């Protein structure tokens, strides 16, 4: 048998693991074995995992810092909600509404990404961090002033109040600071899982292609890349817009899982939360980021039993994980016994193999 490339093997491993985890969770969830609490978290986990992949593309692979990723999520969320609500008059099929919402969310977030990226990514330095930080705030404040409604004659838009929408017995979709209320709850776990697969596949394909090598080269040594005639701005923009589009898709999935979302939800704290997923999972390590996102969404819920000490415990766990993953000695404490154990269970894999870890 022809020997597979390490990257291909690693990808097959990830897809396999994802599929197995998904199937197990899906069966357990449908069988009612999983508690209501965890069951309610599954779709948000899908959305946050996509956000983690998306930000990893920008931070880990492109090497630029984005501090306003929740802004793109917000754009995707609100455009997706408007699309789904407007489609309610056309079709009753929830999945169709969801897919349309995700597609439209992706397009609008990509446009927003291009608007931010075109001027900023030409610059050299930390400007993207500053501009995305501002972008997140601008989006939040803009959405606080948007009033959008739909009636039989179509969509209405105003920046004043709901009365100036001039609607005839319609439905207000976005009501300024009150956000979107009465969103059709159409997100499903299967679509969420497919979205994770799409995001992962896109990231894996970009990284392991000619484009990906150019992007990683830009991250590692910009001057060398420019000297061989690769257009830095083009590749940066390409990656950033892809990343924004993924965030938009995740936003649409997230929003359509709830009846109400407010612009305030997608604030600086959410951006930082997503950045924490990426940093905790390992910058540039997409799989690690996915796991970190899952753990960090589930963790506060599991800690409900300790009541008010919940957030304290959360912080302690974060710090411990940081120490353990970055300290060889501390890591040895856990890894060495585990290695011994695995070595006994699977004798063939006992030696070597992990030298690259």
């Amino acid at each position, binding site marked *: 048998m022809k020997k597979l490339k390490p990257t291909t093997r690693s990808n097959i491993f990830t897809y396999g693991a994802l599929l197995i985890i998904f199937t197990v969770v899906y069966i357990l969830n449908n069988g009612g074995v999983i508690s*209501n609490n965890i069951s309610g978290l599954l779709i948000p986990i899908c959305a946050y995992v996509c956000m983690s992949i998306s930000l990893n593309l920008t931070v880990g692979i492109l090497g630029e810092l984005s501090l306003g990723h929740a802004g793109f999520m917000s754009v995707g969320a609100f455009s997706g909600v408007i699309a789904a609500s407007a489609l309610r008059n056309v079709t009753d099929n929830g999945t169709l509404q969801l897919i349309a919402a995700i597609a439209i969310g992706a397009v609008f977030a990509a446009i927003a990404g291009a608007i931010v990226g075109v001027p900023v990514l030409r610059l050299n330095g930390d400007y993207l961090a500053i501009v995305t930080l501002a972008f997140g705030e601008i989006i939040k404040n803009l959405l606080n002033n948007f009033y959008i409604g739909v009636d039989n004659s179509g969509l209405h838009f105003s920046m004043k109040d709901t009365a100036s929408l001039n609607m005839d017995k319609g439905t*207000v979709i976005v009501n300024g*600071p009150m956000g979107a209320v009465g969103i059709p709850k159409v997100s499903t776990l299967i679509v969420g899982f497919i979205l994770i697969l799409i995001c992962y596949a896109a990231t894996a394909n970009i990284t392991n292609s000619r484009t990906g090598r150019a992007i990683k080269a830009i991250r590692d040594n910009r001057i060398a890349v420019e000297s061989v005639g690769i257009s830095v701005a083009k590749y940066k923009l390409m990656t950033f817009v892809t990343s924004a589009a993924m965030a938009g898709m995740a936003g649409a999935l997230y929003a359509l899982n709830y009846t109400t979302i407010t612009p305030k939800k997608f604030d600086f704290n959410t951006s930082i939360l997503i950045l924490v997923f990426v940093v905790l999972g390992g910058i540039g390590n997409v799989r690690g980021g996915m796991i970190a996102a899952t753990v960090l969404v589930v963790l506060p819920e*599991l800690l409900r039993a300790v009541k008010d000490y919940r957030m304290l415990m959360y912080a302690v766990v974060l710090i411990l994980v940081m120490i353990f993953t970055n300290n060889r000695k501390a890591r040895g404490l856990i*890894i060495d016994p585990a*290695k011994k154990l695995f070595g006994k269970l699977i004798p063939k894999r006992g030696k070597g193999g992990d030298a690259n870890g």
Partner: protein
Amino acid sequence: MKKIVALLLVLVMACALFAACGEKKSEGSQSDKPAGEVKPFVIGGIGPLTGGAATYGNAAKNGAEIAVEEINALKGDVQFTLYYEDDEHDPEKSLNAYNTLKDKGLQILLGTVTTSPCIEVSAQANADRIFELTPSASSTDVLGGFEDESGNITIARKDNVFQMCFTDPNQGIASAEYIKTNNIGTKVAVIYKNDDAYSTGIYQKFISQAAKVGLEVVSITTFTADTATDFSVQLADAKNNGADLVFLPIYFEPASLILAQANSMGYEPAFFGVDGMDGILTMKNFDVSLAEGVFLLTPFSADAEDEQTKNFVSTYQSKFGEIPNQFAADGYDTVYALYNAIKKGNLTSDMTNAELCEKLIGIFTSADFKFDGLTGSGVTWATTGEVSKAPKAVVIKDGVYVGYNG
């Protein structure tokens, strides 16, 4: 190496999932255990117990706890087991809290305390057919089915949801009318938080009602969560336009800053708040003398002379060491309203959630169900879910609320 770390994390995750399952079972069996002879109703509350809005959640929780203890001490046919979960004033967390309560065998929901989370949770409770009585989530979107001025309906009526407090529009309307009829101010300035559903909701109705009753609004300024640290611009605008009353449809934290800054710039109008202002006296590091003379619209004042209020205030003080605010009273009243309704309908805790829900809806909307509580007497509910009781204003004098009568 990386793979092993990843594998370990996956294992931890899997363990976590199963741990949660295990937890579910043990909680379930716990609630099945009879306390005394009757099986208690499992009631759940959700509110912000941590974070910026924690004052409201904790007050409502304490109030509800007192009521549950009192009812259980009667050893009657109706007993309650109360679980309270934190939502940090976030719809996403609130839905998680609701699901946690469901794992604990939730039958009737008392909550949630704040507005946006309640909109989220009430939709889910409606789908699950669990009866919900919220102590203080005041937006009409919580109930659903309200038309705005142009006849638009944002969200359909959720027939299982009822409120213990006034709706936002009613607070806005009542405030404007109260100010006009009692002649508290003639030129009004409004400072509201325009990224907040609660604040914007009250503001919009206040403005339209002010126009109707002929109240002159001379200055309208806004702030957001990010700019809630400095109000000099807003106050200067109010002062320059000669406002003699500042209407603050906001929570007490920013309001406390406004009071302090107005004081330091020597601007002394009357301040008028709504129920979000409640809690300002128990705020840490706040100079209570600044709040002297502030009006607020609230259905409850701790200095009321009736027996029920006196008992409640003394129990609350001995238990939690502070004077209860309106949210505590709302929390207390929701439990008693529920208790009365259950008594009236002879409901038992072995009914299914859907049965309880239908019966309770019937009782709450029936014309002969009247409730006398801390926040009003002869309280009734309409089929829209709105409560009908008389609004009251109090004024802060010597650090305590005093009923204001013209």
